């Protein structure tokens, strides 16, 4: 009796139940299991077979089904291996057998695993006895005494250290540990944090069209392959993505530089010129060359290329968040989440008849940021 009480110390419900003598040879295994459960304050209320008697017809039937599932799983796993080893898998252009490699792997592996899953589930749900057990939840709150003791122990520890009484130590610890903490933070802070404004040509405000990156020469507008562009190359109403004509100008090294060069129809060009002339902060004045106009392709909202050009309405649409910009009005945002116009690249034509940027962008390109103005 004392033994049982000891094990059930946190639960009070086992007082009226006789102790089980585990050395009793007549005990069945289930009785031992039930006794174990009781010691954990679990009462097995029902535990009954799903079948009227062992070896019944239903039981055999379910057994056979489970066996079949396992065998099927094995067969499918073998099929997986066979496909993996023998099936043609290397990619070839066009319609080939290798197109079916991954689907076959998926089908064989997937169904094999599912067979195992169903087999185990059927074993548990159909063959094992139904059970209802009740366990005491024991949200045994610590007693107030325990709480008091733990609290006092912790306070006692602080007392013993005597930080309150020993101000010298307090100061010394602070002086000793704070610098050490800073040491831990130093490589992270010093190595990771990077000032975006430290370069001579400030990276947030300059692009590949800055003559500083071209030995002071004006930078040509080029195609992706680096060839320069003549005015004749863009037909009326047409557009072209251009890059700075410097080494690697079309690569992600200069991810802020892609620009859209548009050849406007003469009426639209007139409207755009007037809008440029009336630009309140004078960034866009004299930026066009003839009927040609160039805007940064990097959306001022989230930086996607605003590349869908609607010729009839002179709108540029960014496919990421559907900001729309009116080309003939300083690329003013007219719909969507963008709040800032696309910067215009001032362009002209050099002595050899190729487009050049007459200067870098006159305002920061790309997504907006705190200190941009």
């Amino acid at each position, binding site marked *: 009796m004392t033994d049982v009480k000891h094990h059930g110390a946190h639960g009070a419900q086992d007082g009226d139940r006789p102790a089980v003598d585990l050395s009793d040879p007549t005990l069945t295994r289930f009785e031992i299991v039930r006794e174990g459960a009781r010691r954990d304050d679990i009462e097995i209320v029902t535990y009954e077979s799903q079948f009227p008697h062992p070896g019944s017809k239903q039981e055999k039937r379910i057994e056979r089904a489970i066996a079949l599932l396992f065998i099927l799983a094995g067969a499918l796993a073998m099929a997986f291996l066979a496909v993996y080893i023998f099936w043609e898998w290397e990619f070839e252009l066009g319609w080939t057998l290798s197109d079916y490699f991954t689907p076959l792997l998926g089908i064989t592996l997937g169904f094999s695993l599912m067979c195992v899953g169903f087999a185990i589930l059927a074993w548990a749900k159909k063959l094992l006895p139904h059970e209802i057990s009740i366990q005491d939840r024991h949200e045994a709150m610590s007693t107030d005494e325990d709480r008091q003791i733990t609290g006092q122990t912790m306070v006692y520890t602080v007392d013993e250290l005597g930080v309150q009484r020993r101000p010298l130590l307090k100061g010394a610890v602070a002086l000793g540990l704070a610098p050490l903490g800073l040491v831990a933070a130093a490589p992270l802070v010093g190595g990771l944090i990077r000032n975006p404004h430290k370069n001579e040509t400030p990276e*947030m405000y300059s692009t590949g069209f800055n003559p500083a990156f071209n030995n002071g020469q004006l930078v040509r507008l080029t195609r992706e392959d680096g060839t320069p562009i003549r005015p004749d190359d863009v037909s009326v109403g047409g557009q072209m993505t251009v890059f700075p004509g410097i080494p690697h100008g079309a690569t992600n090294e200069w991810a802020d530089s892609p620009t859209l060069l548009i050849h406007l129809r003469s009426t639209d060009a007139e409207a755009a010129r007037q809008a440029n002339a009336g630009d309140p902060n004078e960034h866009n004045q004299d930026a066009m060359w003839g009927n040609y106009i160039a805007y940064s392709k990097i959306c001022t909202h989230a930086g996607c290329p605003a590349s869908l050009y609607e010729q009839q309405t002179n709108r540029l649409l960014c496919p990421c968040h559907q900001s729309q910009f009116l080309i003939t009005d300083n690329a003013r945002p007219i719909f969507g989440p963008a709040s800032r116009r696309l910067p215009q690249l001032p362009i002209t034509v050099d002595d050899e008849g190729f487009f050049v940027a007459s200067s870098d962008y006159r305002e920061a390109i790309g997504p*907006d940021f*705190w200190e941009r103005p």
Partner: protein
Amino acid sequence: MKRRKLDIGALPGATAKQLDDRFQVATPLRRLLNKVFPDHWSFLLGEIALFSFIILLLTGTFLTLFYDPSMREIEYEGSYTALRGVEMSAAYASSLDLSFDVRGGLIMRQMHHWAALLFMASIVVHMARVFFTGAFRKPREANWAIGLILFLLGFLAGFTGYSLPDDGLSGTGLRIASAIMLSIPVVGSWISSSVFGGEFPGHLIIGRFYIAHVLLIPGALLGLISAHLALVFKQKHTQWPGPMRTNSNVVGERMFPRYALKQGGFFMLVFGVVALMAGLFQINPIWLFGPYRAAEVSSASQPDWYVMFMDGLVRLMPAWQIDIPIGDGYVIPPLFWPAVVGLGALTTGPIFYPFIEARRYKDKKSHHLLQRPRDVPERTGVGAMALTFFVVATISGGNDVIADKFHISLNAMTWIGRIGLLVLPPLAYYLAVRICLGLQQHDREVLAHGVETGIIKRLPNGRFVEVHQPLGPVDEHGHPVPLDYAGWVVPKKMNRLGALGPAVRGFFYPIEKPAEAPTSPGMPPVQPREERKELTSGGQQ
């Protein structure tokens, strides 16, 4: 000296004894084997997340064996002909190799991606279950908070993960991430510059995302998942109300043999479904997107589904820029509100919900019994509101695709989203509360009057009345004694009372006899004899 004969039969017992002498595991092991778990299908949703996480660890480890987290520009020379000779990053090239030049690599990649989508989906559904049934109440507030942090970590794991292939789509995602960092007031440009190691895209980001994706975030996930499970273990699972079930016990099955076996089977099932999807359904075909180029994007650029709500919020945000006219002037771009404030608030705000609700109901007790959503209409309404918000935002994340496929104006879609985001959630709240109250009322009605039998009786005076089957005892006038609502399903149809008898099992031939009477302890047996009499007499009239 005589050698003692080895007794094979006693060997396991002897080994176990030796082990227990050293580690004293017998008692704790017995407790573990015996631990009782309540059972309900809705408790398995979180398991799906756990199992997906295991699949993610397994397949992810395989992927790391071939992936090269480098932004070095190289010329692709693999077997995918369409991109041969194209300049691309080593990361993208190795991702292509994983898809084309590693035998079975594609299915691993797709399993990883599908498991990630399933991971996030099951977290969301599991969270909804926990919310609507009140499982987050005291003492489980901490686990609710951990769950929300797990969602946020999963979100970050997903984002860092799909950035790694460095294809056209993921580069666009990175570009947007950089813009989101830039939008943070005061320190935005410093954060972006620090994270990317310079101006976007720099040369470091893939390597940094790689270590975050394979070590830092999974480490945090693993730690928090362990804490999550340990708390479930320690605090024991909640259960639905029902016969024998109280706030101070757990009614169910012991972990062994049945419960653990069912878990194992379920894991295999989840694993199998993921493998099947990975084989049959293409996901993230990076070879179609090409390498990332800052000047290129295509329409229908959608992130993974669990990021779409944020993308949708970004799309719907009006162009409200805040200018601060100090010095040269400063600016807070509109992107800041949905992407930084919105994401932060939506993932951390709900952490406080359990405390808010407890305060509102002045409820300081511990709760281990779940509540049916209908019984707490306000909470259900709040949940319906949140879900509606999430769905509208998610749909708006694909509004360009919807506009394209259904020939709706793109601008109209944006406006529908903007208005819907404000109007639909309150509407959902109102409808959910009304539906809850209606269901509550019907429960009470059935408990008071009994189940409608569908039988109309004509009284001698010519009146017609409907016959109700009482659920409990009747008083001397034959009127049912009203029953108390027990917080659980009230049977509302005669066949739930066993009136029609259960279907006979067996496909080709019956393998069991029809049961004599229903045996479920929650549903008392009925004697439908009187009603049957009424029926026959009705037929003779």
